[in-house]
């Protein structure tokens, strides 16, 4: 049985490699916000209030492009609706927590943290304080994200654009799913999602990001039925 501290540290360690892509991306996010003409203070509070990577960039780009606040807010909601799926997966492991703890822990659920903690949870179901792993991944992401966006805001785009560091984001997610390429059913689900995301890329409010997972999960349900 691992202690709370051990689980927290394990979470920190499990997510830390992703900082290789998260930190440059955060710097880019901060710098873009200021470049688009928003007050540095507004760009920063987004990292605190929304705390949602790509959705922050989209929000500012839409507003600066003349979209209404309603459209910008709706887009953020739709982009981040994928968290509903993460929550559904995590709820099984967080069930024993008190309502207040669930409310607090929810704030730090992010893509990479969900991915790494979910992998850990599957292998260590019996641990009593499992949620400390999620707190570890989430807090690490939170601290790095704040520092990275803040540096981008203060120092501007000191990361040369030619480096194309935004490309590190798809790479970080490749690292997350690549081991599942061993399983044919997962490969089919991934390809379905990927192709749907390209097909629906121009759908309004960036909704491809939730349309394609829904289609892919539907395919997953069909595959499960075929397996039987």
């Amino acid at each position, binding site marked *: 049985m691992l202690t709370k501290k051990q689980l927290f540290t394990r979470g920190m360690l499990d997510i830390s*490699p992703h900082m*290789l892509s998260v930190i440059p991306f955060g710097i880019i996010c901060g710098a873009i916000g200021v470049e688009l003409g928003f007050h540095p203070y*507004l760009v920063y509070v*987004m990292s605190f*209030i*929304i*705390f*949602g990577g*790509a*959705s922050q960039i989209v*929000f500012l780009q839409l507003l600066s492009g003349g979209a209404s*606040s309603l459209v910008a807010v709706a887009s953020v*909601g739709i982009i*981040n609706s994928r*968290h509903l799926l*993460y*929550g*559904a997966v*995590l*709820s*099984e492991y*967080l069930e024993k927590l008190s*309502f207040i703890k*669930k*409310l607090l*822990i*929810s*704030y730090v*659920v992010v*893509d990479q943290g969900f*991915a790494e903690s979910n992998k850990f949870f599957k292998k260590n179901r019996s641990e009593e304080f499992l949620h400390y792993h999620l707190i570890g991944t989430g807090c690490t992401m939170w601290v790095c994200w704040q520092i990275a966006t803040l540096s981008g805001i203060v120092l501007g785009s000191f990361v040369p654009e*030619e480096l*194309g560091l935004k*490309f590190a*984001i*798809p790479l970080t*997610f*490749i*690292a*997350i*799913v*690549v*081991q*599942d390429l061993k399983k044919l059913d*997962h490969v089919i*689900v*991934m*390809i*379905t*999602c*990927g192709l749907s*995301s390209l097909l629906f890329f*121009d759908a309004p409010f960036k909704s*491809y*990001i939730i349309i*394609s*997972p829904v289609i*892919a*999960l539907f395919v997953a*349900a069909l595959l499960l039925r075929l397996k039987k």
Partner: protein
Amino acid sequence: MTLTSIIFAGILTYFTRMTMIALISRDMLGDKIKAVLEYVPSAVFPAIIFPGIFINDFGTFIEMNDPKIFGALVAVIVGYFSKNIIATISAGLVSYWFLIFVVFN
């Protein structure tokens, strides 16, 4: 006001994170749904990966000889065999940089 919109966007985002964790109990999800949810990572992350590779900053498709495709392939191969996140990301970036700075320069 931009700040008000940010707060609304933040509340909405928080709700997407909190709803399923705080308001759903184990009994509400049947075994079938749980089995489907096993696929969530594979069903969600490609929606970030594919556009990140195949669609450029202007929202249009890249050419088939774009260095990003090569970088992504290298990352997949290195990731598959190394099972190491840092190796995967670095391999993808370095091969991408090799193409844009050395080969195509």
